[in-house]
């Protein structure tokens, strides 16, 4: 069906994607189907012929791999959002700034799996940049995704954790510290047009919509930075 497209969306972008989707459909009248999953899983599916037209990854690695492996169309890749890392606790007043990390008065620090999730890698970089990694390493617990980290913290199983700004956006509890972007490499989330959607005008339209002002406003509203591609 040329009038619709399937977009594979990294799970951490779910909320934002849904609002974008509504906006897009309202504006263009085209149908878009969103399919969520972890970035690795979506990639595995793409590699096995999944009928996805667009891939919104949570990093900039697997989009590149997809192009190299011939699953995606060269030259269509761009960063649609840049994640912001936040140190978060569900206890109001617990997080006061980077000194919370330096004092280390907690038993568990939750981060996302650094090998699979960019937020995890960024968290490690931040700890190292602050020079507290060695001290805090034994207290680190890993969540498989950034969502899980939030759950760890929100249920109080871990006192603090590195989550995405988009996750705590609009939630009026707890305490947090927005990690300065100079403490870690940018968390670029890239989008790419997949081979399956190469001839799908809706897919291309969706990608250009994503680059547009309206979309960027929405994305920023949810706590991401957007840079010019």
């Amino acid at each position, binding site marked *: 069906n040329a009038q619709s497209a399937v977009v594979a969306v990294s*799970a*951490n972008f779910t909320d934002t994607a849904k609002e974008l989707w509504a906006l897009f459909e309202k504006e263009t009248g085209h149908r878009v189907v969103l399919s969520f999953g972890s970035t690795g*899983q979506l990639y*595995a*599916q793409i590699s*096995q*012929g999944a009928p996805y037209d667009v891939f919104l990854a949570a990093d900039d690695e697997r989009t590149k791999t997809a192009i190299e492996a011939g699953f995606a169309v060269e030259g269509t890749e761009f960063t649609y959002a840049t994640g912001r890392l936040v140190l978060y606790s569900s206890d109001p007043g617990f997080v006061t700034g980077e000194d919370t990390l330096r004092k280390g008065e907690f038993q568990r620090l939750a981060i996302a799996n650094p090998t699979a999730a960019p937020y995890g890698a960024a968290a490690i970089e931040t700890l190292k940049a602050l020079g507290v990694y060695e001290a805090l390493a034994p207290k680190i617990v890993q969540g498989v995704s950034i969502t899980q980290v939030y759950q760890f913290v929100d249920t109080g199983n871990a006192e603090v954790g590195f989550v995405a700004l988009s996750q705590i956006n609009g939630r009026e509890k707890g305490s947090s510290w927005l990690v300065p972007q100079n403490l870690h490499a940018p968390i670029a989330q890239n989008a790419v047009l997949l081979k399956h959607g190469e001839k799908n005008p809706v897919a291309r339209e969706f990608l250009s919509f994503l680059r547009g002002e309206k979309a960027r406003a929405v994305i920023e509203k949810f706590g991401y930075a957007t840079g010019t591609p």
Partner: protein
Amino acid sequence: MVESIWSPVRLTLELAFVTTLLLLVVGTPIAWWLSRSRAPWKEAVASVVALPLVLPPTVLGFYLLILLGPNGPGGWIAGGFGLPSLAFTFPGLVIGSMVYSLPFMVQPLRNAFDAVGERPLEVAATLRASPWDAFWSVAVPLARPGFLSGIILTFAHTVGEFGVVLMIGGNIPGETKVLSVALFDYVETLQWREAHIIAGGMVVFSFAVILAMSLIERRMSRARG
């Protein structure tokens, strides 16, 4: 949310129902063979049946994806229907769920068939029942508790099954997005109120289904008890 939930609900029930039904069809002869065969390697086969459990669902799902995909046998079959692959289709989901739930059907059935013993089938044979006839009129009714267990475990597991389905299904609304995946979505996006409602609904509904099946089974056996 209300409208959007019915599609996953329908899909979940369909999947659980079809999977359970097909696993009954596939698992029963396997269990029967395991119970009656004297082949020396039958315990090896029995062990293989339990293996799908050993792999993490997403990993199993990944291998199934390869099998079902365009380069695997599944793609070859799918080619017959003009599809590139069985992955990301409802039949693909069914196959995945069946593989993963196979041990839950076969183990209880085999035990039940073992417990039936030789004698009732011998009696049936002396009463002119062919092995096929005796199987249906004697072995199956006597193995009813095993069927109940197999059905309950398979049904519940398919309802809750997630990793494999997510991997093979690809979370496509109306087609492969089952309830557990929808629930996953809500949890993933931290919409916990919705998650609680769905989880609660699934638990209550499954409880009702399982309880009803058990009570019917026990009533049937008490009628004869």
